[in-house]
């Protein structure tokens, strides 16, 4: 079996779930990591340190900006020449678009957002959530190479062996593209909910505090600041319910549930989130769920291990302080 792992990166930073994909690949066969881009030597080095046995590098100024067209064409050409059985990718927008297009070129299939794999010599069976996580399906692909994108944090991340190195092969890029990248503006800094071990999330309740005498949006801004304080103290990411995103309190990249994201953190703290069915299925794979809500009847308490019935505006600063003391920060 020949396994390739695509290492996704943006502006010189590898997406950490790429390393998880190397870990999965190594349970099946030696792993060839694919690193496409411009000036990517740092990512090549990290790929070895996270377990790649060899690296295929395509380093070309035309690949400085990700474009699904050029990256997919480059991948298809390599795969046609070397015929891998399996191409693993992290489940990012970029990797998904690239796998989608390359699968058309190679007349093969893509298994998306996979949370578990069973492999034997003949067949790989992939488990993935569907219907917003309300169900899971086991799927197979009858053609090769099969593309599988892996859900972030669904598989263990290999430990880094600093200084490890190995053979590097270089190939040329396919640079024909009909799209132009004209500019980029950075979003918020901070941890992405995909890769987060800890998520502190807010819902409708963040705008509900009449005593502050502020309008809805200003109240919600304050509420998310309190959520952000706790998240940053714990080194976690900020999440949000669909209600909070739809109300315009926070960008949708923070949305958990309703295809927003199904997340798998170790700790999920839901503040002012009542717990719609979509939200609850979105956090089903979280290890420990904590609910903070004024309404003791809120459905979120049915999936939480610990609950606090109370106002998030009062309680979040107190719990943040309590952690500060206990963690000595």
């Amino acid at each position, binding site marked *: 079996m020949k396994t390739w792992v695509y290492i996704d990166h943006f502006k010189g930073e590898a997406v950490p779930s790429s390393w998880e994909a190397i870990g999965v690949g190594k349970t099946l066969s030696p792993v060839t990591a694919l690193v496409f881009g411009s000036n990517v030597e740092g990512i090549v080095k990290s790929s070895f340190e996270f377990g790649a046995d060899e690296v295929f590098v395509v380093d070309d100024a035309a690949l400085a*900006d990700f474009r*699904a067209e050029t990256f997919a064409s480059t991948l298809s050409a390599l795969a046609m020449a070397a015929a891998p059985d399996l191409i693993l990718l992290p489940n990012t927008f970029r990797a998904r678009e690239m796998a989608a297009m390359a699968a*058309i070129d190679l007349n093969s*299939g*893509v298994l998306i957002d996979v949370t578990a794999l069973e492999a034997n010599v003949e067949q790989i069976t992939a488990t993935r959530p*569907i219907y917003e996580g309300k169900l899971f399906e*086991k*799927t197979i692909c009858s053609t090769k190479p099969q593309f599988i994108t892996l859900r972030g944090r669904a598989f263990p991340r290999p430990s880094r062996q600093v200084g490890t190195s190995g053979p590097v092969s270089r190939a040329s890029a396919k640079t024909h593209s009909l799209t132009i990248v004209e500019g980029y503006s950075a979003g918020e800094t901070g941890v992405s909910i995909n890769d987060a071990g800890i998520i502190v999330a807010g819902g409708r309740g963040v705008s509900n505090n009449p005593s502050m005498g502020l309008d809805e949006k200003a109240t919600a801004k304050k509420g998310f600041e309190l959520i952000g304080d706790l998240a940053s103290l714990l080194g976690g990411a900020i999440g949000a319910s669909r209600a909070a995103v*739809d109300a315009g309190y926070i960008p949708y990249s923070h949305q958990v549930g309703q295809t927003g994201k199904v997340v798998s953190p170790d700790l999920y703290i839901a503040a002012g989130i009542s717990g719609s069915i979509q939200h609850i299925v979105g956090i089903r794979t979280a290890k420990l769920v904590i609910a903070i809500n004024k309404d003791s009847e809120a459905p979120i308490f049915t999936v939480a291990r*610990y609950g606090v019935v109370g106002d998030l505006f009062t309680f979040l600063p107190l719990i943040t302080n309590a952690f500060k003391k206990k963690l000595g920060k």
Partner: protein
Amino acid sequence: MKIVVCIKQVPDSEAKVVAQNGQVSWGESPLVINPFDEYAVEAALQQKETQGGDVTAVCIGNDSARDALKHALAMGADNAILVFDPALAEIDSQGAARILAAAIQKVDSVDMVIFGRQTIDTATGLTTAQTARVLGWPMLALAGSIKVDGRKVVVERVIEEGKQTLSANMPVVLSVVQSIGEPRYPSFMGIRKASKANIPVWSLSDMGLQAPVAVVKRVELLNPPSRNVACEIINGSTPEEIADTLAEKILAEKVL
């Protein structure tokens, strides 16, 4: 400008979806237009309003999917086409993309194709990229805003790391995200018009296609393991005490 919106019909997001005898069951819940596809229809109507032209909604599905198309018509789409063929019961994303590409070619002289960013049922999020690839047209995916200047289309692509500005010349394939604007409600007149609409049905042979062979297949459907957690409500005489107790409990779980 000629715009095609590709939509799908899915069980309502509120539905309790379960696996029953190996099949997906959503009980009495209604089938609706995929919520993200409503944003695609909205984006198409916005473009029609500024650029002129017409909007055609295309849906692969069976007879019930007419309701999703009628929703698009009621919102303001000009035409609707149902792609139905008994051979399409089990298609994968690649098959869907090849069929949609053929339908778009049959609509003819299309300038812009718009998708929602993904469906809420199988949620592969592959169809936009795959349809663009089959057509050989540029893809501008995850657009939060769309500007048209002559034949040039400029979008702001919303990704995890921020916003990218991308451009390409028509014909283009787009997908849109929620920041494109809240989908409009169907108007009374729109609903009346949609209820009377005659929706043509295209079969595979109408588009000169053979039945696609699915390479991705479902072999098993599973209900998620039930999660029986008993919630312990933390009590205390003061909020400070409750916060202290909760912090202790979380630390004891060793998740930090």
